[in-house]
């Protein structure tokens, strides 16, 4: 089966500490779950796949249409959630008219979507960030602890969205401590150990 993305013999050094050392991983369509204790390098692994941290050694392969959603919402303050998502859609060259419906489907009403993001609650900001999945329609979706800050309804929607993406043969990589119900449906569960 062809891989969507891969890290080959990847080493990532942050400060004086090698977080990943000679790490190999192939991501295939479907769900890959990354598990491990705090400090084991889950976030670094996802950021390496997204090209957000440099590799000291090794190689990274990832599609141009890669979406990384970190532990914080990634939305610019002073700008509304709607305009943040419109900007990102336009930058990728995808239609921005899907932003309103996508935000609404994640429970962000039109009035809320036009307010500056710093006036939204943490959960609303997080849900607005998750709406990028529907807007940007990427081939590789990297989710770092995506269930933090969101309520049960949003978590259920996220689980549904992940299943839909997997059904569309897109690749989803999820770093999470919880949500063990993801494991049975996953292509692969990657366990990381803290670097020695």
């Amino acid at each position, binding site marked *: 089966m062809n891989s969507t993305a891969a890290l080959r013999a990847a080493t990532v050094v942050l400060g004086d500490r090698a977080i990943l050392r000679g790490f190999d991983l192939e991501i295939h369509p479907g769900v890959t779950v990354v598990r491990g204790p705090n400090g084991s390098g889950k976030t670094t692994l996802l950021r390496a796949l997204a090209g957000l*941290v440099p590799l000291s050694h090794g190689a990274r392969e990832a599609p141009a249409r890669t979406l990384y959603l*970190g532990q914080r919402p990634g939305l610019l*303050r*002073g700008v509304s959630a709607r305009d*943040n998502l419109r900007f990102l859609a336009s*930058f990728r060259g995808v239609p921005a008219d899907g932003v309103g419906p996508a935000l609404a489907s994640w429970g962000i009403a039109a009035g809320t979507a036009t307010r500056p993001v710093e006036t939204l609650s943490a959960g609303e900001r997080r849900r607005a960030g998750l709406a990028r999945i529907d807007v940007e329609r990427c081939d590789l979706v990297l989710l770092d602890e995506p269930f933090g800050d969101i309520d049960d309804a949003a978590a259920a929607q996220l689980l549904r969205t992940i299943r839909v993406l997997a059904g569309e043969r897109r690749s989803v990589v999820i770093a999470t401590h919880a949500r063990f119900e993801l494991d049975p449906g996953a292509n692969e569960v990657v366990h990381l150990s803290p670097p020695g």
Partner: protein
Amino acid sequence: MTWHRIRLIAAREARAERGQPDGIVSAATFVATLILVESLAVGPLAASQPAVASALFWIAMAFAAILATSRSFERELEDDAIDAVLALPGGRDALYAGKAVALTALIASVAVAGGALSLLLLSLDVALPGHLAIVAVAGVLALPPVVVLFVVLALRLRSRGALVPILVLPVLVPQLVAATNGTAAAASGDATGAIAWAGLLIAFALVYSVLGLTIVATALE
């Protein structure tokens, strides 16, 4: 990198500044205060000399550019908004160029306000207003490519607030010398001198823009 993407980043920056106008407000307040304090420090007679008045103005503008640019990138770091841009194909170059464009517009508006204040406060007579405008435009164009580049280079440093002025001000000395001499030449009626200094400022803007676009993608890793 395309103009479309640069325009998108610049528009996003303008929106953010409209929503949280602390960059332009702090830069304009800083320029006004600095011009006032400096003119008091050197005395009204000395401050109204073209060379002194020009130097006061451009030193204030350099600090204002650093202030506004730093604030702009601090906003990007809150909630990791910058990651969303850096992960986009072509996002790094477009971020540099788009920020430089947006901050040029911001600094231009601060320069208009600061220039008007300087002219009024110091009762300056300008012999060649048209040439003064050309030098001012060139000076405003010369600042952001340098300042944005150094703010990007210092982005991951914890003490960047203190380091950026230390790093960027020595590099800005040639631009400050050119802008000061060009402004003084325009104020005192030296048309050839004003245009020559303006040309040098444009050259600085081009060189640092190319340098920034060349190294910023690596610097942002």
